């Protein structure tokens, strides 16, 4: 009997892979994806290239050359102009706005009366850039009033960062948790997308067998459970094929695109960037390289083999749980429009897992919410994977949590597949009914 399973898997796989819309999706998606990325890149670039010009009318002595041009902001001095004329010309020149700094006895009086005129409500980034300049100046002036020497002031300006170490004295990097959570998040997101896309495929394929009325012919030859299993495995193999094609082709396309863009920035480079700026950029990238080194080291320390292993475990179990639910839903209904009432409870835990993951696990990978959701079997495949890049054991996910999570997941898997198979077995032979939850509960008790 069991030798029929490969036959079913093969049919489901081929039926899926040869499907025209599947082929189109497989080819088009990477193009779309890379195209979108390129579009976003160009749009962002175009957006940033648009330098905002702000006129500054400074009547006092405090802000003589405090406003320096930045990549996105350029300041024009309207010094000496009467305010009304300055407003007019700023409007005529289509400047972004006019910053008016009146004269005053002391810095407090001056800054208290600063005004910004502009056509539309200004962007928050622009406002905070100007506010930063002004508040720096206030600090500087006040400190000088207290008689603080310049040298001290420069030293005060230097930032401060806490050095983070764990109890065994290992140096820890700030932000590394977020980076690790993003890596885990990517895995979790992948699982969610896979479940949503290919779970729906399983469901549609079950519905198709019902509507084409072949189902009874098939299950007079094979057990409904075999058919369900074969369908799930075949569809997921097709899904993996598609994912692999996507990954490879998106990678290749991305590389080509990056190559094209790289050349174009080089061409632009020498003409637009001043030598000093270029030097500064070089210096900076040296700094970044220095700072990046420990991060790369830390990332290399993640046991990728272990992570990949857990990914496969959570992926397989999570996908099987959800796709058997999808199969049961497909069996219970006659057409796809009837699936809606059952879809909400399926999608909810997935969405919850992703949002909880992004909002809670990033900040606090081992907090109570993160722990709870990484144990709860319907969310653990996603949430646990976001926590796992932190490692297992000290400083990472406690071993008991990992084991509990997997055990719960396996138990749930067995339970859900058992339930789904029962619903499936009865549902596939029910035609022309639109069952509610009550009806389906009754099916569970049929022998």
């Amino acid at each position, binding site marked *: *009997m069991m030798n*029929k399973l490969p*036959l*079913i898997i093969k*049919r489901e796989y081929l*039926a899926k892979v040869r*499907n025209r819309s599947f082929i189109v999706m497989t080819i088009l998606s990477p193009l779309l994806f890379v195209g979108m990325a390129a579009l976003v890149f160009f749009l962002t670039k175009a957006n940033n290239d648009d330098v905002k010009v702000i006129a500054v009318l400074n009547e006092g002595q405090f802000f003589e050359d405090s406003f320096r041009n930045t990549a996105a902001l350029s300041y024009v001095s309207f010094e000496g102009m009467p305010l009304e004329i300055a407003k007019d010309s700023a409007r005529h020149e289509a400047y972004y706005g006019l910053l008016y700094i009146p004269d005053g006895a002391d810095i407090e009086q001056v800054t208290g009366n600063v005004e910004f005129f502009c056509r539309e409500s200004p962007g928050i980034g622009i406002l905070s850039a100007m506010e930063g300049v002004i508040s720096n100046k206030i600090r500087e002036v006040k400190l000088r009033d207290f008689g603080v020497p310049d040298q001290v002031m420069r030293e005060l300006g230097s930032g401060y960062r806490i050095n983070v170490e764990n109890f065994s004295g290992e140096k820890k990097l700030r932000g590394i948790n977020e980076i690790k959570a993003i890596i885990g998040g990517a895995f979790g997101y992948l699982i969610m997308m896979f479940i949503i896309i290919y779970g729906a495929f399983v469901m549609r394929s079950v519905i*198709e*067998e019902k509507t*084409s*009325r*072949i189902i*009874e*012919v*098939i*299950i*007079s*030859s*094979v057990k*409904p459970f075999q058919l369900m299993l074969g369908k799930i495995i075949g569809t997921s193999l097709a899904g993996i094929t598609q994912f692999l094609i996507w990954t490879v082709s998106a990678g290749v396309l991305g590389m080509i695109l990056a190559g094209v863009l790289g050349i174009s920035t080089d061409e632009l480079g020498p003409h637009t960037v001043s030598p000093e700026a270029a030097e500064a950029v070089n210096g900076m990238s040296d700094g970044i390289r220095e700072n990046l080194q420990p991060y790369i080291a830390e990332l290399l320390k993640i046991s990728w083999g272990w992570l990949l292993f857990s990914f496969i475990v959570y992926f397989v179990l999570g996908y099987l749980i959800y796709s058997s639910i999808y199969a049961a839903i497909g069996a219970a209904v006659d057409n796809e429009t009837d699936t809606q009432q059952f879809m909400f409870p399926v999608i909810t835990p997935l969405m919850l897992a992703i949002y909880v993951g992004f909002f809670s696990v990033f900040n606090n990978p081992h907090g109570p919410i993160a722990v709870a959701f990484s144990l709860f079997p319907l969310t653990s495949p996603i949430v646990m994977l976001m926590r796992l890049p932190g490692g297992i054991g000290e400083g990472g996910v406690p071993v008991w949590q990992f084991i509990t999570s997997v055990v719960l997941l396996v138990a749930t898997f067995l339970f859900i597949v058992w339930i789904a198979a029962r619903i499936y077995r009865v549902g596939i*032979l029910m*035609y022309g009914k639109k069952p509610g939850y009550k009806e389906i509960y*009754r099916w569970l*008790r*049929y*022998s």
Partner: protein
Amino acid sequence: MSNLLEVNDVSKKYGSYTALDNVSLQIPKGSIFGLLGPNGAGKTSLIRIINQITYPDRGTVLFDGKPLNPEHIARIGYLPEERGLYKSMKVGEQALYLARLKGLSSGEARERLRYWFDRLEIGDWWNKKIQELSKGMAQKIQFVVTVLHRPSLLIFDEPFSGFDPINANLIKDEILHLRDQGATVIFSTHRMESVEELCDDIALINKSKKLLEGRLVDIKKQYRSNTFEVGLDVPDRTAIRAEIAQKFRVADASFKSLSDEVKLRIHLPDDHAPNDLLAYLVNLGVVTHFVEVIPSVNDIFIRTVKDSDDE
């Protein structure tokens, strides 16, 4: 062992709904067995149990003397009432797939498919998709995949519903042919005319209970009512009719004839033999027609179902 299939006291419930209530059947080897009953009587439930799609709550089913087990699946061919094929799959691939699910090897299946495709003149459809075929063509394919693995038990659930008359006839001939080659056929339907033509044995199920079972001729004998249709050529029809009506229970009959005679349906009391009636009639005039009224399956069906509903 002369019975291929024995169903013993099988009961099946779906929740609180009883689909089968203590049903027993004996299906002789090499016969065409009519499983009759109105819609919802429990025929399909019984067939699904024989196909091991569902299982009885109580009772046993013996196939060739052994309790049903998964190996029997390959020896049964089932054409369900709700039937269809994968619409976007090619004919050949699909037939191969279904044959292999029944345990045939790929080579065997190909060879037999070629035979059947030739026999039913559908050879050049191999690479067509089902959705490109007409309904009649798809039905032929459906029939082929049902019989391809040479099952010893064939189950047809309403086989002619949806078939056009030409295909229905073709399939009827093929079913008889398969029976002659030794297959046992269960033929489930509520259309009685095809039962008269095909079935050797019948069972009647109504409201989850078996009402009647046996050889078709025996059942007909059991239901004969000692009624005869007669035609009598006489000068004074009204007087003769009145005279006969005094002696027997009569009703008017209608049948085709050449002369303008008295046409009657006469019901004889149990102690009268047909010859007595004939002798009596011959004295009255020229007997042009004398035939025993044999109950049709349809009559038996309606009478039995009505009687059981009245109880």
